[in-house]
């Protein structure tokens, strides 16, 4: 029996007439990496802000560590680490000082903070930059510093809102590596992302959010199994031939999707589908066979592309 760290029932956030989060339910267990996957505007950040107690709940019930954020947000914040979507480091301070002041905000003694800073800078691979100012650091370094800052109080729950958005691939992979380590060491993570690969790599379990609602919930594998057949055949056509081809693909696969630049055929057996394609005389310019991904799940659930 795992302990539920965060529990939401009918959780709702409205801004005037606009409903950002629409009566969602979820449970996040201790030690789990839980993802919120969805396009911009799906309600992920609003949900994070309610969990981190910096946005009041409009309706429904939310508990973090069994505490109601509206009643005692401070006790919750004492035990969480937050990596916001936009870095909000103090640019006037040095790398170490940014960590120091957050340690103080968490009521830590100087003698506790100093060794912790060295540990965290080592973890974030920023030891060399300990005394440099924050301003000239690269985007990836700032992100890692923000994560280190979120860990200063050894939080029981770490909340990361789009941790790798805007980073180059190298910086992203380094960051993933650090998040893996946290996970391995037993941390509970909540991650929002609009990157499929990120969710597949990092999350044990996730919810797909769309327009404020939870469209599906499960592990990445479960979601793929449930909502997308095993394989995808991607067809690309010469200019002008796609519309004609789109009419002839009926019955070739369990499901098909005609996108702007390609046709997707979802199937349990890609070889069979390809053979039938040939026998119908459909000759695409390019054929790509791949395994189903979360993106296919997402297309299925929402009927549109993720990155908008």
């Amino acid at each position, binding site marked *: 029996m795992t302990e539920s760290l965060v529990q939401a029932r009918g959780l709702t956030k409205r801004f005037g007439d606009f409903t950002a989060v629409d009566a969602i339910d979820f449970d996040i267990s201790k030690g789990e990496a839980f993802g919120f996957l969805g396009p911009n505007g799906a309600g992920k950040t609003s949900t994070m802000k309610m969990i981190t107690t*910096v*946005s009041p709940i409009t309706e429904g019930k939310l508990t973090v560590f069994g505490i109601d954020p509206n009643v005692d947000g401070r006790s919750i914040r004492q035990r969480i680490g937050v990596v916001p979507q*936009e870095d*909000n480091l*103090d640019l*006037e301070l040095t790398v170490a*000082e940014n960590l120091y002041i957050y340690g103080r905000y968490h*009521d830590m003694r100087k003698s506790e903070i100093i060794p912790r800073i060295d540990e965290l800078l080592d973890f974030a691979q920023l030891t060399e930059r300990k005394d440099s100012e924050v301003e000239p650091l690269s985007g990836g370094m700032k992100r890692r510093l923000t994560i280190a800052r979120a860990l200063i109080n050894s939080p029981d729950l770490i909340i990361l809102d789009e941790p790798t958005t805007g980073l180059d691939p190298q910086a992203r992979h380094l960051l993933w590596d650090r998040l893996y380590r946290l996970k391995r060491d037993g941390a509970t993570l909540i991650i929002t992302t609009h990157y499929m690969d990120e969710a597949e790599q990092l999350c044990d379990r996730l919810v797909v959010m769309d327009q404020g609602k939870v469209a599906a919930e499960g592990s990445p594998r479960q979601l793929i199994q449930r909502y997308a057949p095993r394989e995808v055949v991607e067809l690309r056509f010469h200019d002008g031939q796609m519309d004609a081809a789109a009419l002839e693909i009926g019955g070739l696969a369990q499901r098909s999707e005609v996108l702007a630049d390609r046709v997707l055929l979802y199937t349990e057996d890609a070889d069979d589908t390809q053979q039938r394609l040939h026998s119908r005389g459909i000759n695409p310019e390019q054929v790509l066979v791949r395994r189903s991904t979360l993106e296919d799940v997402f297309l299925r659930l929402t009927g549109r592309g993720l990155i908008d």
Partner: protein
Amino acid sequence: MTTSLGRSLRYAESEVIAYRRTWRGTVITSFVNPVFFLAAMGAFLGTLVDEGTGRTLSIPYITFVASGLMAANAMQNGAGDGSFPVMAGIIWRKNFHGTITTPLGPADIVWGRLIWGVGRLVFVLLVFAVIAVRFGALEIGPALTAIPPAVLTGIAFTTAITAWTLTQKDGRSLSTLFRFLIVPMFLFSGTFFPISQLPGWLEPVAYVTPLFHGVELVRKFALPGVDESIITSIPTWVHFGYLLVMAAVGVYLSIRLLDKRIKP
């Protein structure tokens, strides 16, 4: 120490750490400009004033200006502290958004900035007071006595302008505030001449401005016994009450507005 005071002190501590790195950037406005005014107006113009057609002031002009500048300097620093760093905290750098994900809340930020604001004002005004003494503008006693009322003046501006800044969409309106409110107040609220010199219709306007009350309070504190060529007959408690209410309303509104702004 997780009391409200403890948390506010934690926040003030981070401001002190930041100030160790940023004070150089504030040297001109906080320390050099007031001294320029003291020299140009108090010393050089003052010679003409004192030797001019019949002395109308019962004290040397430089003493008059120095005491006025204590309050005006506090206003400048207080207003600066209530505007740009607040906009930075909510929009430009978003530090406040980060701070409230820790055990600190909006009220701790407001109180912490107030504690820090008092400390910084004391420091800035102490430096000015020492220089004013060196100029021969003030005796050491009056110079030090002028600090508490000047600090109250500065804090009233910090908190009121913090509240106002929190209602602004972006930073564009901040320079307008300085151009059309702070600078006119600096010039016309009694720092450089008694407001009885103003045209009759403008005098009541000066009475309403907070800086007038700050300047009067400083002079009534630091220059006891001066006559009505220097100060008005308005009771001291009126000035004190005005500034205290302004500061209190400023704090109250700042907490409410900051909460609304960063905890939507």
